[in-house]
């Protein structure tokens, strides 16, 4: 191994160790007792190690139900985002129709509207649709196209050489078949990126579930963890950290599985 390589690995090793410190601190904090958690100056290592924080938090927050709810919301959101955004994006990238570019600008423009502004109108709409206190408001909008997803997928479709599509056309494919059988499979990295972004956004979302969900059994994971928070001065912080760490696991798994596509997709869309 050359010296350059050794130095490079050392640099990578050191910076990863630095990045790892917050995780490690969180892990140690999640194993402390209340008294130790509040100690000043803070102690890094838990003594005694309170493993039961994890089992207690699992019981306290009804984690299995909340995890299932979060998974339902995330999976349905991902499906919706991938299907609807890619369809709209394909139309913007390849089909010819009046006001196409103006419409695309309008779609992009909606990304500038802060989410809080639309909370009340959305709440009223979901109320009238009878969807309050169901998981639907948390994922159904993803089935109606998502501006960021449309932008991301449009960039991906634009990057495919037109020759593929022309060849398919000569073979007798209609526009939907070209989209479904030719263009979409060539955009897997971008689809994976969109899936991961949607997953992370939905998995960590807090405001929408707080507003739309009332019944405890329908809480998503972040709301469940938050409900452990003490009412007054802090409280149960060790549980909050333990809960947050548990909820991190699925994100890590998804990221590890899709890492190859994720990095590729983010690079090809110039989003790094």
């Amino acid at each position, binding site marked *: 191994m050359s010296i350059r390589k050794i130095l490079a690995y050392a640099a990578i090793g050191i910076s990863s160790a630095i990045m790892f410190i917050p995780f490690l601190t969180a892990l140690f904090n999640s194993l402390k007792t209340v008294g130790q958690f509040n100690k*000043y100056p803070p102690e890094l290592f838990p003594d005694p190690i309170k493993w039961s924080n994890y089992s207690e938090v699992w019981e306290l927050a009804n984690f299995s139900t909340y995890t299932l709810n979060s998974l339902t919301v995330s999976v349905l959101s991902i499906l919706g985002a991938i299907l609807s955004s890619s369809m709209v994006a394909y139309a913007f990238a390849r089909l010819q129709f009046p006001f196409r570019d103006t419409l695309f600008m309008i779609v992009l423009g909606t990304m500038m509207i802060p989410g809080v502004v639309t909370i009340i109108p959305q709440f009223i709409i979901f109320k009238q649709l009878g969807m309050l206190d169901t998981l639907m408001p948390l994922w159904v909008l993803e089935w109606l196209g998502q501006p960021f997803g449309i932008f991301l997928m449009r960039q991906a479709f634009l990057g495919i050489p037109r020759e593929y599509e022309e060849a398919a056309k000569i073979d007798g494919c209609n526009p939907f078949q070209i989209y*479904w059988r030719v263009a979409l499979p060539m955009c897997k990295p971008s689809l994976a990126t969109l899936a991961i972004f949607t997953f992370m956004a939905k998995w960590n979302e807090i405001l929408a579930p707080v507003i739309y969900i*009332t019944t405890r059994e329908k809480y998503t994971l972040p709301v469940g963890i938050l409900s452990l928070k003490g009412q007054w*001065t*802090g409280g149960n912080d060790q549980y909050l950290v333990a809960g947050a760490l548990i909820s991190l696991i699925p994100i890590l798994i998804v990221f590890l599985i899709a890492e190859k596509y994720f990095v590729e997709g983010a690079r090809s869309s110039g989003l790094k």
Partner: protein
Amino acid sequence: MKRKRSFSLFLSALLSAALLITACTGQQANTGDPQNAKNDSEQIVLKMGYYSDPPTQKKMEELLAKFMEKHPNIKITTETGPHAQFFQKLNTQIAGGNAPDLWLSDGVKVFEFAERGAVKDLRELIEKDLSKEEYYGMDANKGPGGEVWGVPQGIQIGVLYYNKALFDKAGLKYPDANWTWDQVKEAAELMTIDASGKNAKDPSFDPNKVSEYGFTIFSSPVGVSRGWFPLMKTFGGGVLDSSLQKAVLDTPENKQAIEWMVDGMKRGIFPDPVDLQSFQDPFKPFLSGVSGMQIDIYAARVKMREAGLNFDVAPIPAGPGGKRFAPSIVNSWVISKTADEKKTQAAWEWIKYWATDDEAQREWASLGEAIPVKKKVAEEVLTSDTSLNAKVFLDSMEFAGSLDANAVFGEWRKAFDESMFPAFSGEESVEQGLKKANEAVQKVLDGFYKK
């Protein structure tokens, strides 16, 4: 063949999504939405909202079950969540016309709801069913036209908490009811210790390397109940005049109070805003046993006990003119303006049960979360608590006062915090800070009241 298969796969995905949508919507129609549950003509279904954490939620559900047993014609469904999220949701619900029929309001938010027309005037019901003298905080929700917007649910009152171990270590006498702010500072100087173990009276004391502080007095964000506000009041100042629509920050009394505070911060005997940020949680210095004193509310005892602190309480010290003040927050039940006559009556039954039933009051008090609103029960509960000088909380009721909470409390407090931060950090003079804060707070008030 393959083409056909993928297309049918796509179609089935769409179909299952559509099925799911209908399934979920169908489910909604059957869930306990109070609006839809009028099948039983006898039973009134109420939707009640309250903020909670796991223990308070458990206790509230127990009390609700007992209430419903006594009132079989009333069914109460609940909505709950942590404090911040609960109110976030409630505001959306009110705006979207879907508010609960009754809810537990943070004491400082009652006027916010009242002056925006979200809650009912309960004056007549109170006069009919409750005798005012028996309860604490009955005047807290009184509007300028005599309206009463809520009935107390639990009382918080600010006192001076002190760490007995740190007082003993410094060889000092514990604070008592006769203490003044000068005595607080004197004791704080002796308890503040730097990294080399010298106290703040020592000429070689290093205020930049403090390891134990004498007194935590908050600038923001909790200073309104646990810091600058009660201090200013005891110095004869305040934030708003009695109309609650005019800022009176730019006064010599306020200047004197804030200068007293900033002086302590500059000398390192009180943690300044930057020090508190470095602790992440502003309550941490006292909770972790490295601060000798702190102003805090009744509920804080629970967490301090959990942290294993050896502490006690004394009334908030008197100001230079002997003036006394204890900040009080009267969390209250309010009834939604949208509740019809029947629901209002049912909601009132619950409020009456809460206020008058001694057992319910005792049960709630067992959480240690708030002082019971019924004076008789409060005395009984607090005198039986021998772990600390609990009578201090009741004695402080004599000089308790509100936090100048009005319809724009949250907004004016934010304006104050932002304007005063440079003054608390020593980057700007107190005089300048108060002038700026006065203008900023007045702007907020005018934005609401002069529209």
